Every structure is written in structure tokens, then in C-alpha cells.
């Protein structure tokens, strides 16, 4: 029987569902399952065959499916501050309620935290460890204050990497197979390169796809990049985008009149409003930091350590700024939209200065709007609309002037 060729979007969705189901199946078989931070070195768990699930992804999905407000309010009723990250609040609610109609993940036997995505996350996971009475393994990635990760940092991270493996062997009874680790590292490289290739297609004019698709596709880049299926799916995605670009076509609905950099995590709970506000005006997202954020390029174990220390959220301000400026110029943006994500202290704390320096360095008009990744109470559609309309008017005037 000939199998019909599937599109990358459905392959990625099916893969995401399968990874989630694998974790449930493992839990039901009595295997140990972990909760894991999104930028934790997944090479360890993938190589050891240890299933993990990602509370951050659950927080995003619950937000997108309309449960963010209920879950956040419940957490606040438990005594957690409304100023905490909404992913954390959703997770604390789930830990308390033990159920969530929008999405459930198997409860953990251990926790894996890595603070290269967010330093506040250490407290989130410490709290979970106490509440759920499960062990917490932390890989502490030192903040990178320069361009490169030096040898001392590599040694520091490597020691924790080795210790994490030893602890996981003790907790799960599974052994690390270092040949398998080498294979997983190679597959992860293949996935990362394919992901970067796919996201890199945004530099074409018009971009072959709606940039908001990245927010959906990146889930697999986060949870499954060590699997052959993910590598193949991203290669398929890159091929699809490149084929569209070659023909000058795009899956973006309508004419791509303007191209923007979108800074920050999506407003999952207000995805429709934020997307429509842009798409209805012919504005496509063609630059985002989510390319480099979920791709880790290395050749050996030491370079793997360095790669996890060089992710955008762990790097110095100047490096973060440069990433955005470089992407914006390469991908020919007409403007930029900065999401003041009230959940994220790492992001919101520096956003004003990031926006100011970005505006000065690129010369493109920018706008900041208030919102949150999964708490809909922080977003005002009327305020968003005003800002996006004004940005569009400036971009339109700039285009007229250039003609």
C-alpha cells in the first residue's frame, strides 16, 4: 500500500502527540517520568530512554485553549503572587488540582531544571520538589557575560552534566549508554540544522510562511529534537518552505505588505487577537529569536556544554541585542513589535532598553504592547490595536517615501 506523503505541519503535530502519549504509556508501565525545563540538555534523557514532559509547553497549551485565567486565579488563591510567571502558576494549579481539562501531563517522579531559559525557574522547581515530594536535579548554567563560553564554565557545566546522569541512573535504574548518547547528539545536530534552515526561509521576500507558525512548530524543536522523526519532520518543513520560496509563494494569508520582528513569547491566550491584528493589515512575522533559541550546534560533549550556555536567554544583553538586530536586517523587516510579557522577568526587565537600542541600531519603527504568555488578564485588545495601527501607518508612510 502506498503511503500518502504528509505535510510537515501534520507530521509535527502527530509527533508532538506521540511524544506526549509515550510519556503517558511509560508512566502507566510504571517507569519513572520527569518534568523538565525547556532548555534542559535533552540529550541526556533521550539517550537514557527516560521520558520527560514539559510544564512550560503545558502552560502554553493551556493558555491557548482558554484555561490560563482559571488556572492562574486558582494559583493566586493558593497564595502564589499574580506577579509570578503564568506558566508557573498554571503548573502550581495543576500540581494542586491534579487535573486540567485543557491538557494533562503525567505527574513526575523527578524534576529536571536548567536555568539557561530562566533563572527564576529554579524557585519554581524547588517549590514543586517540596509540594510533590520528588527529587530535583538542577543544571546551573552561569550567565554568559561575553561572546564565548570559556573553559571554566564548560568544566562547571560538564561536572553537573555527569552528576545529573549519575542521579538519573539512581532514580530510574536506567544506565547511560555513551554510544547511544553520541547517536542522539548527532540526531540533535541534524534537527537543529533543519530547524534553523526552516526558520531561515523567512529571509525570502515574501516569506514562504506565516511567521506565527513558528510558535506552533517550535514545540517539537523543544521536546523532540533528539529524535530521528523530529529531524526528518524539520527537514520536510525546510523543503516545503524552500519550495514555496522558489516559486515566490507563501502560506501567509493575503499579501505580505510589511515584515516585522516579533519579540517575546506569543500571547497564547490572545493568539487570535494578536495574529489577526497583524495579518489583517498584511503584516507578517519574519524575524524572531525562536530560531536560535531552540537550536544547539556542537561537535562534541564540551561544545555541547558551551552550546547550552549560549542560548539567548542566558547570554549578555549585547549578544541578545545583536541576535535581534542581525535577524531583523537579514530578514528585511519594516518594523518591530515588542511584547512586554508580564510573566517573564528575564524578558520584561530589559525590554525597554532592548527596544530603544534596537530602534536606534536598525532605524525601523517599533512598538511595545502589554501582554502575557498565558494570563489573558494582562492584555488589552484595544491598546494592542491602537499600537499596531500606528505602526502600520508609519511603515506605510516609509514605503511611500521610499517609492
Amino acid at each position, binding site marked *: 500500500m502506498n503511503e500518502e506523503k504528509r505535510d510537515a505541519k501534520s507530521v509535527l503535530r502527530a509527533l508532538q502527540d506521540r511524544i506526549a502519549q509515550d510519556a503517558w504509556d511509560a508512566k502507566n508501565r510504571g517507569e519513572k517520568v520527569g518534568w523538565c525545563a525547556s532548555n534542559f540538555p535533552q540529550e541526556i534523557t533521550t539517550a537514557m530512554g527516560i521520558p520527560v514532559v514539559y510544564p512550560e509547553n503545558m502552560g502554553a497549551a493551556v493558555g491557548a485553549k482558554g484555561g490560563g485565567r482559571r488556572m492562574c486565579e486558582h494559583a493566586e488563591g493558593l497564595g502564589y503572587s499574580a506577579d509570578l510567571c503564568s506558566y508557573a502558576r498554571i503548573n502550581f494549579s495543576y500540581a494542586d488540582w491534579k487535573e486540567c481539562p485543557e491538557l494533562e501531563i503525567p505527574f513526575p517522579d523527578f524534576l529536571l531544571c536548567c536555568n539557561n531559559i530562566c533563572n527564576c525557574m529554579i524557585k519554581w522547581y524547588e517549590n514543586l520538589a517540596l509540594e510533590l515530594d520528588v527529587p530535583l536535579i538542577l543544571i546551573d548554567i552561569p550567565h554568559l557575560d561575553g561572546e564565548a563560553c570559556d573553559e571554566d564554565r564548560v568544566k562547571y557545566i560538564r561536572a553537573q552534566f555527569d552528576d545529573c546522569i549519575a542521579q538519573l541512573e539512581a532514580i530510574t535504574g536506567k544506565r547511560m549508554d555513551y554510544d547511544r548518547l553520541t547517536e542522539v547528539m548527532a540526531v540533535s545536530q541534524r534537527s537543529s540544522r533543519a530547524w534553523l534552515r526552516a526558520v531561515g526561509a523567512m529571509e525570502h521576500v515574501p516569506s514562504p510562511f506565516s511567521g506565527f507558525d513558528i510558535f506552533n512548530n517550535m514545540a517539537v524543536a523543544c521536546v523532540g529534537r533528539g529524535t530521528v522523526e523530529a529531524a526528518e519532520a524539520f527537514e520536510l518543513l525546510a523543503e516545503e518552505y524552500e519550495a514555496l520560496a522558489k516559486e515566490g509563494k507563501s502560506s501567509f494569508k493575503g499579501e505580505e505588505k510589511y515584515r516585522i520582528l516579533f519579540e517575546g513569547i506569543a500571547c497564547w491566550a490572545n493568539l487570535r487577537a494578536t495574529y489577526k491584528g497583524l495579518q489583517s493589515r498584511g503584516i507578517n512575522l519574519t524575524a524572531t529569536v525562536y530560531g536560535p533559541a531552540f537550536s544547539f550546534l556542537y561537535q562534541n560533549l564540551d561544545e555541547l556544554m558551551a552550546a547550552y550556555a549560549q542560548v539567548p536567554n542566558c547570554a549578555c544583553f549585547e549578544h541578545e541585542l545583536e541576535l535581534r538586530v542581525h535577524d531583523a536586517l537579514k530578514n528585511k523587516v519594516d518594523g518591530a513589535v515588542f511584547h512586554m510579557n508580564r510573566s517573564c522577568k528575564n524578558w520584561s526587565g530589559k525590554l525597554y532598553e532592548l527596544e530603544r537600542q534596537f530602534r536606534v541600531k536598525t532605524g525601523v519603527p517599533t512598538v*511595545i504592547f502589554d501582554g502575557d504568555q498565558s494570563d489573558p488578564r494582562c492584555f488589552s485588545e484595544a491598546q494592542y490595536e491602537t499600537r499596531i*495601527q*500606528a505602526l502600520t501607518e*508609519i511603515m506605510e508612510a516609509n514605503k511611500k517615501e521610499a517609492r
Partner: protein
Amino acid sequence: MDDVLTLGMDVGSTTSKCLILRSGAEIAAAALIPAGTGTSGPRRALEEALDKAGLKREDVAVVTATGYGRATCPGADHTASELSCHALGAHFLIPEARTVVDIGGQDAKALRLNPEGKLVSFLMNDKCAAGTGRFLEVMARVLEKEVSDLAEMDAQATGVVPISSTCTVFAESEVISQLAKGVSLPELVKGIHMSVAVRTASLVRRLGVTAPVVMTGGVARNAGVVRALEKELDTPIRVPPLAQLAGALGAAIYGWEHVREKR
């Protein structure tokens, strides 16, 4: 080209402004009703302006709505953001304007114009209403005064009672507790104005202060806030006589440009 009438409606959260412009050059009539979006204000402002000019709606080529209530403004042909409209209005009133500060009912804006008057960048306040017209309304109510009384009271102050809270609700409590202590009302009003100015100044500084600085919007009528902002920014601020109508004026200009392009 014959005279073309364009009409700008600025439907804010607390007031509705309407202005009729003749061929993008001459103001034919204007009206301001102290009732904003969702009220009879927009309709009344439109009727009053048309009445003053002796015109009917059909005499007007284009109606452009701006402001918070622009999307629901009755009879509007199209909309434009208040950012673009205040920039156009300010440039019309003071052509050399390079930085425009507009404090409206529930937001504050800082606009940067190039030497030709084109809006090149802007910043707005975040969701918090501190430092906006609504903040001043709340404070005036606590003091049992009208917003229009505040500037004169400020002028009488010999010192200042600082207000440290940035949250409108907390600042209200702070003002109440200062009142209970029996502090001088003018000095308290000056403190309230300083609080607005400090918040607005941080917005303007992030954008970059390029002189001349012009202030538009309803709060520009409050000389106390203008003085406090001048002090904070260390630069003189020019307030055009039609500051509060700048948004409606800009909308009418926007409409005029639309008509001109079509021809």
C-alpha cells in the same frame, strides 16, 4: 481644486472632539463634548461642529475617526490611529515641532517627528492609568475640585507634597492620608502634577528629547502639569491654543490627504 471639507472625530475615553477642515488648510469649525466613547458624546460633537459651520453631513467629503472609540464612531468613513493624528495635528499647529507629548484620558504618548513633520517613532504608556488624564480626574475628585481648578491651585503652591505611589489607587490613598494630615492643598496638587510629569518624562526620555517639544491633548490645558514636565525634561514646552483638538485636527488632515491622493 474646489474647497473640500474633511471632518475629524477624536473619540476619546472621556471626551469627544470634532473638527471640520477646509481643503487641509483652514479650520471651519470645532466642537468638544465632555463625554467619550459609548455615550452620546460623538454624535453631539459631530452635530455641534456641523451646526457651527452651517453645514450638513453630506457637505463633508470624508469623516476620519481616531481615538479610543474610533472603531465604533458613527458615520466614519475610515479610521486612523491617534498617534498619527496627534503628529499631524501638532505639525499643523506648530510646524517646527519635533517631539510631541500627548496625555489623554487613559494613555500618554511621546511622538518623534522628523523635520518634515512625519511621525517616525513613538512610545506609549503601559496598561497602567497612572500619569494620564484619568489619574488627574481621580485626584481632583478626592480633593473635591474640578480638574480645571488644578492648574490655578498649583500656581499658588510655595512648596510641594510629593506623591510617591505610581498606582492610581494607591496614590489616591496617599492623597487622602495627606489630606487627613492637613497639608496645603496647592502643594498637594503640585505633588500630583509632579507625579504625572515624572512618569511622562521617563517615556519621553526613552524616545529621546528633541526640541521643540510640543504638548497636545486635554492635559496640556493644565499649566501645572506643563510646568512640572518642563522642569523634569529641562526644556521649554509649547502648547498650541487648540491642543485638545489636535487629534481631531490630525484626523481631518488625514482625511484631506486621503482625498488628495485619490484625486
